[in-house]
């Protein structure tokens, strides 16, 4: 546990010093503020005489739905970009060997990385969500505080799943590109399964729709997808750890 905390603090400091935390926060904040703003003033941006079809008047629900859509799409790309090198880069550069020649477990090494990435995305989503909420209240109306928080939590959980998959691939390969590419293919394929019968209740991709449903007060709860996602987060972390443990540094 002690070595986990040392590694966790080191990872967190690394995210701060290399501005990764700041970048994630800025990205989510831009989309948090930008989505309600864009929907509110879309009809102003498109002059009436040039528009073929005039956009409808958007509501607070549309703003929140749009924000959650962007959160998951941009968040997925950000998760892959940030996590694909987290282990692979350290193996390639030799810093993993330097750390793991000390009395540190490879499990702590992997879990600390995932935990800090989860925290970074949690902070990013929290800041983005606060921005989105304030602008939606100002520009439209109150979208409902509790549901909005729950929707963001589900969105964060989906991104945590994306991070876990990417960290697992990063533990498998020395190449960041291989890790990122495979993570992208896996996550896009899994997102696609959310549209299939039966799978729509269990696929991690169903969390995206569920988050929107919570925010807009529509759609059914997909507890099965939640359970599967949590199980897969644990499973991919264990797989990443076990494979990494056998690697030569």
């Amino acid at each position: 546990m002690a070595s986990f905390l040392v590694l966790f603090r080191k990872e967190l400091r690394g995210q701060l010093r290399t501005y990764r935390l700041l970048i994630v926060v800025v990205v989510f904040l831009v989309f948090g503020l930008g989505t309600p703003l864009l929907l509110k003033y879309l009809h102003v941006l498109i002059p009436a005489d040039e528009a073929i079809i005039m956009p409808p008047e958007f509501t607070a629900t549309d703003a929140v739905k749009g924000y959650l859509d962007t959160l998951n799409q941009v968040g997925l790309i950000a998760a892959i970009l940030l996590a694909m090198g987290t282990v692979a880069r350290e193996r390639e550069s030799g810093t993993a060997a330097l750390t793991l020649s000390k009395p540190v477990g490879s499990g702590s090494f992997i879990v600390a990385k995932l935990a800090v990435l989860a925290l970074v995305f949690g902070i990013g989503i929290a800041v983005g969500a606060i921005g989105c909420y304030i602008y939606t209240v100002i520009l439209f109306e109150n979208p409902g505080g509790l549901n909005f928080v729950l929707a963001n939590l589900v969105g964060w959980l989906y991104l945590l799943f994306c991070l876990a998959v990417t960290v697992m691939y990063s533990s498998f390969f020395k190449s960041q590109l291989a890790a990122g590419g495979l993570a992208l293919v896996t996550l896009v394929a899994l997102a696609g399964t959310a549209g299939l019968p039966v799978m729509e209740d269990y696929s991690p991709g169903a969390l995206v729709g569920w988050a929107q449903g919570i925010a807009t007060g529509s759609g059914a709860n997909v507890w099965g997808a939640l359970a599967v996602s949590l199980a897969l987060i644990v499973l991919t972390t264990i797989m990443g750890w076990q494979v990494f443990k056998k690697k030569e540094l």
Partner: protein
Amino acid sequence: MQAIRCQGLSKRYGSIVALDSLDLNVEERVIFGFLGPNGAGKTTTLKILTGLAKPTSGSVWVAGEEVAPNSFALRSKIGYLPEEPAFYNWMTGREHLAYVGQLFGLPSDDIERRCDELLELVDLSRDASRRVGGYSRGMRQRLGIAQALMNKPGVLFLDEPCSALDPFGRAEVLQTLLRLKEQATTIFMSSHILADVERVCDVVGIIDKGKLIVESGVEELRQRFAHPVFEVEFEEPATAFVKTLGSLPWVVGVESEDVSGLRVRVRDVARAKQELPKIIAESKLTLRQYQMVLPTLEEVFMELLGNRKNG
């Protein structure tokens, strides 16, 4: 008591044999120089000894612990400097040492004190607050040595510790190694700089193509494995004298340091002692210096590996 013991250590990467039944014993409190040409298996051996790689077969004990991957007991007792030490470039030198101290679970007061000591030892005190990303290769090497010493290891593994250092840095590191040996540390170092090995190592092992060719004390090695050398220096150029020596059956080779300074390697030292002064006298050259010296470790190394290549 043995600090390091390997039995039948082999390592294969597919069809490539990196180590072939390596048996090695290193006594406590010695500096062991591990030599060999590029690709001989030195780094692979170091990685196996530190638990960073698994052998295909064989067993290893270091500091009384059987080496196994993820052995915390082993890692607590050893220090390791890789060939090209890598650091988090965003950390400062002091932060990196503190981080290593935390990984060893040292109390924060001890970490502070140890950081000061080690930064002083490797002459990085003035640059301790600079980011490692801005360090030169030599500074990184010195920081690597410092981090390997953080836990006051019983056995210290160094992969080419002097490779990136200037002559002053090398001299300081070698002095540090001798001091550590006095403090009961066993040091296992690989190096290409044979003069350094000769200067500090008590015992050397020479490895080639994954096989240990020889393991011996430095002096013993020089006595056993290389031809004695006569250093001869004249006031005048000695081209004709070199030609004369080249035709003698008891002369192995003549190396010219300059036109008048020669190193004559001989096969039969008794005969050389008898005949060489006569030949010098007959040459009518003005003798400035004449002495018999032991061969350098480099000459032993070249001879041993040369014989293997030729044989």
